[in-house]
């Protein structure tokens, strides 16, 4: 952008003044480094305003820490502390118990934009582009002038190295300001390894929606295996305890699927490959291409091309035109969908455990869809819902969005998941839903997309792009949860009705017998007892009728469902009605108490 406007200006000058040599023009044109570009366009990375910048810095650091721990097979323990230095200046400290970073890599990881292990591979992970943490450091340097301070310990036997880094934006390179080996910092890492990053930056801390607190709370939901400690600027310590003692399975790395790449990428791959023949190239670089499929593709490309292409064609001999033919051939060919074992969903149980500890509701349900594919990229959708309890029933429901376990807080309405929730017809499940909007009620909807490549709408990773395949899967998962909620709500209504009915009769019987006594002199006690007896019989009959209708039977099914947790909700119900003591306590079947125990067990076992 900057370069083109500059060009235009010089061009105008040239026409007015007559002659300008190519050299003069060339003087005005220079390379712009990636860091410089982002320094000017920091909003693309999520540093548009002070409040969001603070959140983005925390987010990038936490994502990195979790990724590092999981890859090293360590149960993550993350410590975050935000210190307010003055009104708009903060000192952010994030420490993990991960494997640490070897000294040689520190500069590249924290000082270089677009450096990372994650961009070039097809593997499910939190970070993707390798911009995150270095961008946070750069933002800090730009706003406060303070360098990034890193302490990392890679082995129990070696002392931690302590490095202070400054980023040179024009060269996309880091400069070491100070460094030492500091055994004193050992106390920071009781587990033997880990990394601590300190960044000073300008920001604004505010609770509420889209805050650090919300982000950490949601992170804790999607990562029940992580232990997170958060010390706020007001020196309040908030613990997000671990709910699951198992690390998620490690995600497998896969090769890209032919259908998932673009022409440019294909040409690049052709240039970089070490394979000699076309057949070998296709088999080595892509998933789901065997010898037969490779020769099929070569044949199809040959038909489209003027030059002959055979499976044995030298890759180095293939020009731009041939690559295009090959690309077209790939689009036409039918290729098996990519393997999906590379995906690691959170899993219904862990999702429920995460929700259970952070959301105070009475009903929880989760659904995990089987993996599938969009544009050659495998992905998998998971949905969990929480209903009732202490959630507000007046507002529209809340959506918690996650991509590869990372909470997405901004641009909700641009997100595919938002559209999927709106398009789902919640009225069918007993909720109110105004037209073209979220359902209203005490509902939290959690949507998680696990994929080797999550299609974000922008670099700051705020919203999932709206692909039809993705939205369809989301809706199917939402409907699955919705159906369970519907069953639960219908049953709850039924139960409430039953106990209310009994209550009503009992309430009025006294009045009726005393009135009859006043009018015709019937013995009020006798009449009261007789009517009470009849009331008990009537409600019993009604209960039995329900059994025959099979409604209770389906409710039992709900309780046996592993993906559903129902908590004791009686307290809540009684408070709502303010009719305490009028309900017959027997109206609550013992089955519910059982579920409660079950859910506790679940918490422990999963």
């Amino acid at each position, binding site marked *: 952008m900057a370069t083109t406007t500059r060009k235009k200006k010089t061009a105008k000058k040239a026409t007015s003044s007559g002659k300008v040599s190519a050299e003069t023009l060339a003087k005005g044109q220079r390379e712009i480094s990636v860091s410089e570009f982002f320094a000017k366009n920091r909003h693309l990375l999520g540093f548009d305003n002070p409040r969001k910048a603070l959140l983005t810095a925390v987010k990038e650091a936490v994502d990195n820490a979790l990724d590092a721990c999981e890859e090293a097979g360590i149960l993550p323990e993350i410590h975050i502390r935000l210190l307010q230095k003055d009104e708009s200046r903060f000192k952010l400290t994030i420490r993990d118990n991960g494997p640490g970073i070897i000294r040689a890599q520190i500069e590249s990881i924290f000082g270089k934009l677009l450096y990372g292990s994650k961009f070039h591979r097809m593997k499910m992970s939190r970070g993707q582009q390798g911009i995150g943490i270095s961008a946070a450091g750069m933002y800090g340097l730009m706003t406060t002038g303070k360098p990034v301070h890193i302490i990392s310990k890679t082995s129990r036997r070696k002392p931690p190295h302590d490095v202070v880094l400054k980023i040179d934006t024009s060269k996309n390179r880091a400069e070491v300001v100070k460094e030492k080996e500091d055994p004193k910092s050992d106390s920071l890492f009781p587990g033997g390894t880990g990394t601590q990053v300190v960044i000073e930056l300008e920001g604004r801390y505010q609770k509420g929606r889209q805050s650090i607190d919300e982000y950490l709370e949601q992170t804790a939901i999607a990562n029940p295996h992580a232990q997170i400690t958060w010390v706020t600027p007001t020196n309040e310590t908030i613990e997000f305890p671990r709910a699951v003692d198992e690390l998620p399975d490690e995600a497998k790395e896969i090769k890209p699927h032919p259908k998932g790449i673009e022409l440019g990428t294909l040409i690049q791959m052709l240039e970089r490959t070490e394979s000699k023949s076309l057949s070998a190239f296709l088999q080595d670089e892509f998933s789901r291409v065997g010898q037969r499929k490779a020769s099929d593709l070569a044949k199809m490309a040959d038909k489209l091309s003027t030059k002959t292409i055979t499976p044995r064609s030298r890759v180095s001999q293939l020009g731009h035109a041939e690559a295009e033919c090959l690309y077209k051939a790939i689009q036409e060919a039918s290729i098996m969908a990519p393997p999906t074992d590379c995906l690691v969903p959170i899993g219904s149980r862990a999702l429920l455990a995460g929700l259970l500890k952070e959301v105070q509701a009475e009903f929880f349900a989760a659904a995990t869809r089987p993996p599938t594919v969009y544009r050659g990229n495998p992905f998998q959708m998971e949905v969990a819902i929480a209903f009732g309890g202490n959630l507000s029933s007046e507002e529209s429901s809340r959506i918690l969005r996650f991509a590869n376990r990372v909470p997405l807080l901004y641009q909700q309405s641009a997100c595919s998941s938002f559209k999927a929730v709106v398009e789902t017809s919640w009225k069918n499940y007993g909720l109110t839903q105004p037209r073209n909007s979220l359902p209203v009620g005490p509902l939290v909807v959690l949507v998680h997309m696990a994929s080797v490549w999550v299609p974000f709408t922008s670099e700051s990773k705020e919203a999932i792009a709206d692909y039809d395949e993705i939205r369809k899967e989301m809706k199917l998962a939402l409907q699955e949860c919705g159906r369970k909620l519907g069953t639960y709500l219908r049953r709850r209504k039924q139960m409430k*009705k039953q106990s*209310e*009915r009994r209550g*009503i*009769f009992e*309430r*009025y*019987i*006294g*009045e*009726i*017998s005393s*009135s*009859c006594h*006043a*009018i*015709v002199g*019937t013995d009020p006690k*006798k*009449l009261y007892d*007789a*009517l009470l*007896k*009849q*009331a008990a019989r*009537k409600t019993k009959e009604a209960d039995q009728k329900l059994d025959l209708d099979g409604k209770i039977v389906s409710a039992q099914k709900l309780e046996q469902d592993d993906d559903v947790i129902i908590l004791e909700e009686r307290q809540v119900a009684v408070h709502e009605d*303010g*009719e305490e003591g*009028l309900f017959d306590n027997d109206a609550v079947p013992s089955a519910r108490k059982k579920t409660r125990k079950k859910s506790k067990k679940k918490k422990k076992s999963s």
Partner: protein
Amino acid sequence: MAKKKTTRKTVRKTKKKSTVRGGVVSKQRDKETIGKIESLASSVAKSGLAQREPKIEIPIRSVNNMKYNPKKRILEMGSSTQQRELFNAGQARKFMQMLLVSKGCKELIQAEKTLSLRGMYYMALHTIEGTSEKTFNEQSESDTILEDLEVSIDGLREELHVFAKKRGTMVGNITVIDNGDEIDCRRMGTGGYAIPSICEPSVIQFKNCDADFILHVEKDTVWSRFNEDRFWETHNCILTEGSGQPPRGVRRLLHRMHKELGIPVYCLLDCDPWGHYIYSVIKQGSINLAFESQRMAIPDAKFIGIRAEDYDRCKLTSDVKIALNDRDITRAKQIMDYPWFAEKRPWKKEIKTMLGNGFKMEVESLITKDISYVSEVYVPQRLKDGDFLD
């Protein structure tokens, strides 16, 4: 106007005597009423003790259970009834309320006193023991229960010793005896005689009446205009007003004067669906109280105006137009389809003209012509021409 010429009507002597006999009759009636209430309660108690479901049968008071009797030209209640059951979650509360109201009425009758509807509400009102629930949340609840009780024991509100708020005024060439007091309606000043809620022969008797007809107007303001212009004197009539939808007292009085004194009733109402329905209630009876039509309806009542055509006929200015809203339009169409309107072509034409006009008019709109246009020109003209809708 009237075919019957002014023949002075003297009220039969039995009527006069009824003042004395009134008490006896009402005592007799009270006994019957108490008996009805007792049988209702004892049937509830009996079935309760016998482990049978307590039920009360109530004739349904809705459009569906109401029939127009073309011969008598009044609305009558049909024969369908509904069961009010105690062991039905939706009806239990109402069941209890009915017994409470029954109990209240019995006590009232025994004490030989009467109460207003609001008084009845307070009499049956208390908090149910052991709960925070009140037996009645508002008066409208007890009012409907009382109507239910009326139809289910086939006794009238008056017989239950309950009366409604006073509404409606009368003035004119008649003397009435109200609870023994002689009231000359020719000497009522500007306020007029307030028509009581209970106008049964035991309470009110007619003494001497010289009037040739009754002019009933919709509201108080118009009535005052006529009274100030001494219309009843110049035209020898009785002037009544019902404050909108006339209450039972006004309707009962009109009915009795029409029947017992043999004088016709003319109505001057607004030109809107509301006015048309008031006319319908006076003439055929109301849907809700169809069981009382026999005692209240005046099938011979006539509608003087305001007519839809009056806008052109009286050369009114566009200032008096009040646009019909959607509710007016649906209501007008509903009224047009009522069987007792549907069979009358002039009425259908009238409503259609109003709908065609797209506006309604109040009686007061005639004031734009002249302050006393309505009493000095409009009504006398219509009476003279015999120009009214039936």
